[in-house]
Each structure stands twice: as structure tokens, then as C-alpha cells.
């Protein structure tokens, strides 16, 4: 079999270019294997992130032939011998080669008020939650923080909106907290304000790239938008919220 040609972005914030590498093919090879081959045999300075090589840690995000994907989950033979271009994800500032500065995401996460059970629940040792109570949350909890959804969200990507919108990843995170049967906080003020949920216009681009197949818009963002609207435009609910203490159960 002929060598597989890769065009890999090499450079840093100051600039850079694609560089060509011919990598010997191997059965079942994924793009990450090729990057490792380049490091071990051609150029050990090629910077990329990875941890698990099993699509579980979300470290190896890149744009492969223009499409945001995990390098460890992208089979080389899917491209049928055509050259493969690998670039860093675009939405975050470039550090070097395929590595970007994703620290903004960690700052956002810290702004989200953490899981907060009631005082009574905090005291009791064992909780009862039925399978039905928790199963819809599992989808959100599957997020591996690959930030591919952040990469394609046009609020962040085209409009450089990191100062306005937390991005789909953190809508998923907030949804997991808001819909947790034992959580007592309401985060709709944050969503309406700093979180910027209003900027999302439900194009679903994020959903398309999620390697965990999380229905980001249908199951997280739309219900959160509804809650936010309720809380902000429905005085009756706002009153309930002020005096009720516990969150009343709400739809999806």
C-alpha cells in the first residue's frame, strides 16, 4: 500500500503553514496514530494533545479535512487514500501546531454555581432516585469536554462571542445541574445574563459534531431557553421561585 499523505498545520500564534508527511499505512489506523508516527520518526516537536486514544477524554480535538473531530476516532481508511489535512480547532487561540489555549472553558466552568442539594438531603446518607429521575441526565453527563461543539458554534466562532455566550458545552453542563432532581439552585439568571443563552439561535451545528451524540440543542438548550423565558417573563413563576425554596419539577 502507498504511503498516506498528511498535511499537518505547523506553527504558532505568530503564523504557520501546512507541512506534508508521508506516513506508512497500518490496518485500522486512526489520525492520532499518524501524528504519533510523525513524532517518533519525522519530527518530535509536533505538538498535539491526547490521553486515552479511546474517545473518552476529549483531548485530541482537531479539524480534519475541515471538519471538527477527535483524532483518535477518525479512521484513516475513511478517506480512501486521499490526502488528509489536520489543523487545530479554530475557535480558541493557537498555542502551537495542533494545541490551542482552551483555558477560557475552565474559567466559564468555575462561574457556574455548583451542584447544591437541600440541607436535608445533604444530611441523609443514601438517596433514592428512580432510574427515570436520572436517566435523562446521563446524556449530558456523557460529555467528554472535547470542545468540538464550542469550535463550531457560530456565536463563538464567527462572532468571537466568548464574552457573551458560554457556548453549547456549558449549556449541557448547566442543563445537567438544572435538571438534577436533588439540585436546589436556579441558574436562569446566569443563563439570561452572563451565560448568554439568548444568543443561541438553534442552528444545531454543535449537535452535529458532538462525538458523544448528545442532543445539545433539543435536550439541553431548548428546555433551558424555556425555563429562562418562564422565569424572566412569567411573574407567577418568579414568585414561586422566590418563596418556594425547592425547585418545582418542570418538563424536559
Amino acid at each position, binding site marked *: 500500500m502507498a504511503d498516506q499523505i498528511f498535511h499537518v498545520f505547523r506553527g*504558532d500564534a505568530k503564523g504557520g503553514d501546512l507541512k506534508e508527511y508521508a506516513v506508512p499505512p*497500518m*490496518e*485500522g*489506523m*486512526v489520525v492520532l*496514530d499518524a501524528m504519533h508516527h510523525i*513524532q*517518533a*520518526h519525522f519530527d*518530535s*516537536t*509536533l*505538538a*498535539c*494533545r*491526547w*490521553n*486515552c*486514544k*479511546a*474517545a*473518552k*477524554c*476529549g*483531548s485530541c480535538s482537531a479539524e480534519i479535512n475541515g471538519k471538527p473531530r477527535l483524532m483518535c*476516532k477518525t*479512521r484513516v481508511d475513511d478517506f480512501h487514500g486521499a490526502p488528509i489535512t489536520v489543523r487545530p480547532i479554530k475557535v480558541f487561540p493557537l*498555542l*502551537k*501546531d495542533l*494545541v490551542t489555549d*482552551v*483555558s477560557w472553558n*475552565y474559567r466559564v*466552568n*468555575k462561574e457556574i454555581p*455548583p*451542584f447544591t*442539594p437541600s440541607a436535608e*438531603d*445533604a444530611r441523609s*446518607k*443514601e*438517596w*433514592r*432516585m*428512580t*432510574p427515570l*429521575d*436520572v436517566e435523562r*441526565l*446521563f446524556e449530558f*453527563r*456523557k460529555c*467528554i*469536554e472535547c470542545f468540538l461543539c464550542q469550535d463550531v458554534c457560530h456565536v463563538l466562532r464567527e462572532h468571537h462571542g466568548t464574552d457573551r455566550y458560554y457556548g453549547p458545552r456549558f449549556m449541557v453542563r448547566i442543563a445537567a*445541574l438544572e435538571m*438534577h432532581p436533588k*439540585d436546589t439552585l436556579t441558574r436562569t439568571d446566569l443563563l439570561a445574563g452572563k451565560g448568554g443563552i439568548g444568543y443561541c439561535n438553534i442552528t444545531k451545528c454543535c449537535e452535529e459534531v458532538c462525538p458523544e451524540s448528545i442532543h445539545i440543542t433539543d435536550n439541553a438548550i431548548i428546555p433551558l431557553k424555556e425555563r429562562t423565558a418562564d422565569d424572566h417573563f412569567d411573574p407567577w413563576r418568579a414568585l414561586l421561585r422566590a418563596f418556594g425554596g425547592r425547585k418545582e419539577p418542570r418538563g424536559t
Partner: protein
Amino acid sequence: MADWYDERQYDVLIVGAGGAGLRAAIAAADGGVSVGLVCKSLLGKAHTVMAEGGIAAALGNVDSQDNWEVHFGDTMRGGQMINDYRMVEFFAKEAPERVYELEHWGGLFDRTPDGRILQRPFGAHTYRRLCHVGDRTGLEMIRTLQDKAIHCGIDVHMEVTLTRLLKDGDRIAGAFGYVRETGRFVVFRAKAVVLATGGWGKLYKVTSNSWECTGDGCAMAYEAGAELMDMEMVQFHPTGMVWPPGVKGILVTEAVRGEGGILRNSEGERFMERYDPVKKDLSSRDVVARSIYKEVQAGRGTPHGGAWLEITHLDAEAIKRKLPSMWEQFHKLADIDITKSPMEVAPTIHYVMGGVRVEAGTGQSTVPGLFAAGEVAAGLHGANRLGGNSLSDLIVFGKRAGEHAAQYVKGVSGMPRVDDAQADEERTLLRRPFEGDGSENPYAVHEGLQAIMAEHAGIARTGEGLQQGLDKLLALQARAERLHVGGSMLFNPGWHECRDVRFMLTLAEAIFRCAIERRESRGSHWRLDFPDQNADWGQKNMIAVKENGRMAVRTRPVPQMPPELAKLVQGQTVVKSVR
């Protein structure tokens, strides 16, 4: 302080942000001291994120007969009696509390119909004991701890690699390393250091481990004078992927067998019936791994030298629900639909039972101020770790180490002195691959090491083979004095590999030296020239320690259980080696 490094200062420095490091950080912060946490990767990416099958804790939710005493017995038998029984006792008693705590911090587990945490069976656990979330338990655990930790007032330093522990006389004074992004050197001054750096599966080529598992913490502890224990005990998980070559070693979780998966040889025979008629496919890992190895040796292996693991007799929807990432992994990476065809599997390096010797209750090593928890610490698992016992190990002993480190620093007056000469020596070592006249490629040396480990320190060992391996290793260590890389210090993987490789070469030496001495077969250590368990050796732990600049190996008596605990281990026979 010199101007060529940055300086940070904490009461307690935690090295590692896997389950153990995060839990230790939370506990230390709870103790009211300042805490810094350092990790090589981004937060939330540590090896722990890959754990799949579950976390072992005797909640008794599914099998009400389960309790800490049974868990104690299973763990001691699983470890073939060279475990530190005091650690096992803390562990079995405290694991349930630690699991409930995760739930109180927002973690979510699969549930029983009446709303409690669901538990699944795993190898050599008497009852259904593994709390889980499908097959992504590690992710759930790390996310829960991560989200808890970032609100605890600790400082997190991501993508920073520490390479040397600093000492003030006998005691710990902090650690030295570099920032990956910039290559800038950094000194962390601290009164206590908790190592939670995980294992060293990357010594081997066929491994389920992430890139971080190069044993840095263990090697740093050794350099700082700590004792390493039971280094010969390296776990082969019986089921790793074997085909295609790109995926070789990736784990096939034990949960597949927990959910009813069956191993067969090329003749279709359920061979575990022969090796362990009672527990069969759910026997302990050492036994199953060896059995697969024996089948392949006997010519009954699969096309790529493994066994078939079949779960097709279960309902397709149930498989996808209970083992979603396994389904996806085989579908994506190997073009196999596991609801229709069997998986081809073979043993893969997975876990290390050996590591830094610590005091059972506190996690303190023999170096004052140096603590260790999680996979880097030794003692809990003895000669073989039971599945699911690692995740509970992380939170039980992570918490204990963090707590005791905080307590310890309260008794330390003033910041220990940092000796710039130590930092300078390490800087020289780190920079040598750029400056010296060496010509060795660190990746080639790493491959060389993996070849030696595979040939001489694999699943089946002999004294002669181990000695040959050690000789080759010493020659490779000499080659590693002449590493060379190009480029700058900015995010330079080749340069990072240079230090990692040297750590691995140190630990490999400890594995060989301990394995040569242990003249018996026990747990994961299978000696063809001493195929039986030996009662005398069953009373000994191996210790490797640096003395006069060289590695010395000796033994240490296994702590003897009081009768009331010894009683808990009887009842069921210890499965003997598969000869």
C-alpha cells in the same frame, strides 16, 4: 530564589489530578491549608477518566449479604495475601461512605428499580458490588471530583510536569518542573507533597494506559529516598483489543464479562471451566489472563493470538444500553458489531500493584512530608488488584492522604528551605538533550524499553530471562544518557519524552530486580521456573530503595492479621496459579 524559574508556594502540593489527586486536594483544602494541584494534562483528562466498569463498594444494594467483611476477604484473597491488611480494612469499611459522598457532590450512578445505586458483578467479587454508570464510571467520577475541587479554593496548574522532589535535609521542601506550553521552569515550595501520579503502563507496548502513565511520581519518590514496594506486580488485564494493530491494547472492560460475556477458544470451548470451574469467566484477572495465554500457547488461540469474547447471546438493545462505549469502540475502531459477532481479545498491561510504600492510615511514605495515594501507592492490592477496587482506592486513600498531609503541615513551622543547587542540577539534566552531543532518539529508546519488557518481564517469566532483561535494560539506561532532541522548549513532545523515558527506565530496573528475587508464582507474577506459590515468599513484600546511588532490593515481612480479620479470609479457597 533564582530568576530562571518561577516560584509558587503552598502548604500542600498535590501532584496529579486523577481521582486520587482530586480527592486529596479536596480533603487538604477542607483541612484549612493552602493547596496547589499540578497535572501534566488538562483538568479532567487524567487516566482515571478512562475507567469503565465501576467502583467497588459493599453497599449491599443488590446483594444484601454483602458487607465490608466480605469485601475485605475478597480483596485479601485476590491479592494473594501479601496486601497490607490494615489498608484493606480501611478500604473495605470506608468505600461505601466515599461513594455516597460522590453522589452528594452531584455524581450520578445507574439505579435499582427502587431508586438505590445499582451494582454489577465483577471478577472475584463474591457479590454484585460495582457501582457504575454504564461503562463510563471513571468519567462520572472525575467530573464530579473536578467540579467539586474547583469550588474548594485550590489553585490548579494544568499542563505542568514536575520532574524532581526538592528536599530540605530529610524532609520534603517542594518540587521542581516545567510548564509544557512555554518550557519555563517552576519551583513549587511546599511543606508537604501528595503524589497521586498514577501508574506506569507505558513501560509496555501493549497497554490500556494513557500517555501520562510513565511513573514519574514513583520514580521521583525513589530518587528522593522513598521505599518502593512489590514492583514485580504488574497487572495484565485479560481482555484488551488485539485487532486491528492500531487499537492493540485498548481495554475491553471486565463489565463485558460482568454482564454475561463468555470467553471461548478457537475450538469454541468455554475454557475457563477448566481453569476455574467455580468463577469461570469471572475469575480474578491474573487467572483469566494466564488461562488465555495458555490457550494461545496450546494452539487454540484466535487468528491474532487471543481468545473470543462473546456477548451475542444477550439482547442487542441491552448490550447497547449497558455497554455503550464498548459497542461504539468495536464498531468504530474494529468494524465489529458486538451484538452480532464476538470480540477478539488478549491480555494487555493495565495496572500496577506496586509503588511507593506508605503507612496504611495516613498515606505517608518513609520520607517526612511525602505522601502518596492511588495507583502510585502500594500495599492495598497485593499481588493482583480486583476490578473496581482501584476507583474506590482513589477516593478512600486520596481523602486520607490529603487529610493527613494537611494535619502534618500544621506541625511544620515555617516553609522548608529550597536549595537552588537541587533545582539547578535538575535543570541541567532537563536541558541536556538540547545541548549535549548525544544522538539517541527518545522515542527509539522508549520502543527499546517496551521490547525488553515484552520479551523478559511479560506474563510468563523465568529467572534467566529476567536476568537477561535486566542486562539489556542497564545497557539501555546507558544509551539514555545520550538523548538528543531538536526544537525549542515550547510545547515540545520529544523533549518531554526524554524525561519520561528516564523515569520509566528507573522503574523498569525495579521491576526486574524485584521479579528476579521473588522465586515463586503469585498473582500477576508468574515464574515458569517456580510455578507454585511458596509459603515463605507469601510472608514477604519486596522493597527497592536507593542506597549509595544504586538500587538495593530487600524483603520486608508482610504485616500479620489479627485473628478476627484472618477469619474473614477463610471460607473460600485462594485460587491457585494456573500452571
